[in-house]
């Protein structure tokens, strides 16, 4: 699990994936809810402008996690199951 190896050397890393239960099971520290399995930071159903805007929102939220202090054993995640259009 790449996220853990990067955190292990002291660099905060956030994993954006649609399959957050998998990431949780593997013990990733920082997880952001991706949009789709085949498009973690994309939303092909939206118009190009809307897609880019939602991508920016998701990446902004993920970057936010990098600035948060994480307590050991408590996994903060951003995003919900719903696709935020």
């Amino acid at each position: 699990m790449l996220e853990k190896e990067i955190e292990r050397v002291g660099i905060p890393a956030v994993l954006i994936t649609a399959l957050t239960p998998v990431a949780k099971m593997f013990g990733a520290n920082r997880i952001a809810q991706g949009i789709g399995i085949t498009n973690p930071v994309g939303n092909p159903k939206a118009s190009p402008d809307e897609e880019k805007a939602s991508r920016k929102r998701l990446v902004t939220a993920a970057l936010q996690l990098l600035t948060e202090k994480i307590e050991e054993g408590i996994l903060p995640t951003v995003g919900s199951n719903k696709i935020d259009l």
Partner: protein
Amino acid sequence: MAQKVRVIHYINQFFGQVGGEEKADIAPFSKEGPIGPGMLLRHLLGEKGEVIATIVCGDTYFANNIEKAKKEVLQLLAPHKPDLILAGPAFNAGRYGIACGEVCKLAKEELGIETVTGMYPENPGVELCRREVYIIETGSSARNMTEAMAKMVQLGFKLAFKETIGQPQKEGFLPRGIRRNTISEDFGSERAIRALLAKIKGEPFSNEIKPPLFDQVRPAPPIKDLSHSIIALVTEGGLVPKGNPDHIESARATRYGVYSLEGLDRLDKERFESIHMGYDTTFVNEDPNRLVPVDVMREMEQEGVIGALHPYLYTTTGVATFVENSKKIGRDIAKTLKEAEVSGVILTST
């Protein structure tokens, strides 16, 4: 085999009758024949084996000088050319367990000698060597010495005589995290129905796949000032320059690629593609920014939200279950990022 199995016994300062905690810093030494519980060992080996030598080392000495101690123990071991090494049993003693595990790993890797040790499941030494070393499951204290040693001897003989080693429950060792396919008497469907009925009745039932145990990594300290940070992008979705110049494997990759993002405001489909076989790559190939968000990262760099986008993209094709590969790739990428003084990473995965 008419010859006796030549066994070396590794024990700590206490069992080696040197002293207690105050003597835990002694360097390793070797003595001919058995010492202390080695006498019991000699008895258990019977006619089939003999304790040709005992190696004693202080637990603290080993724990504080692991590499040095390993070299010294190796030098004491090698000349005897033993057939088998039995270490401990360490029961629940942590430093002793770690030492036993290291000695066994070392002997197997460097000299190809079969080894067995014994520990209580919660001994910290277990996690360090359970994959490589046979660890007989013991109780938490030396009260169970005889039983523990008897099992170590039994398994040790099997290894020395190159017999097939059975399953953990049968042979008495702790599961090593290695699974193999076997042939059951019944169809899987029958076992599932029987297990379900037993579970409903409140009777004991089979469970053939246990949840995995993962090491938790201490969370890295947060970025204090995002506007001055260097953020790197890493992906497991197999995004590569068109044509896959480095021939990254399309599934379960053993390698990763490093590609320059310099001068790119976004990723465009003429120059990048995904070669990942495990998912439908149509959407990503239409717009690679759906996998690696270079476009919005560049915008945020220009807006001053982040200090800079790290100029290189690290890419591989991941499958979560291939732990060994992803550990190695992860460690390599982490090292590179650390050397480049990257502040934070966004990882995307399909």
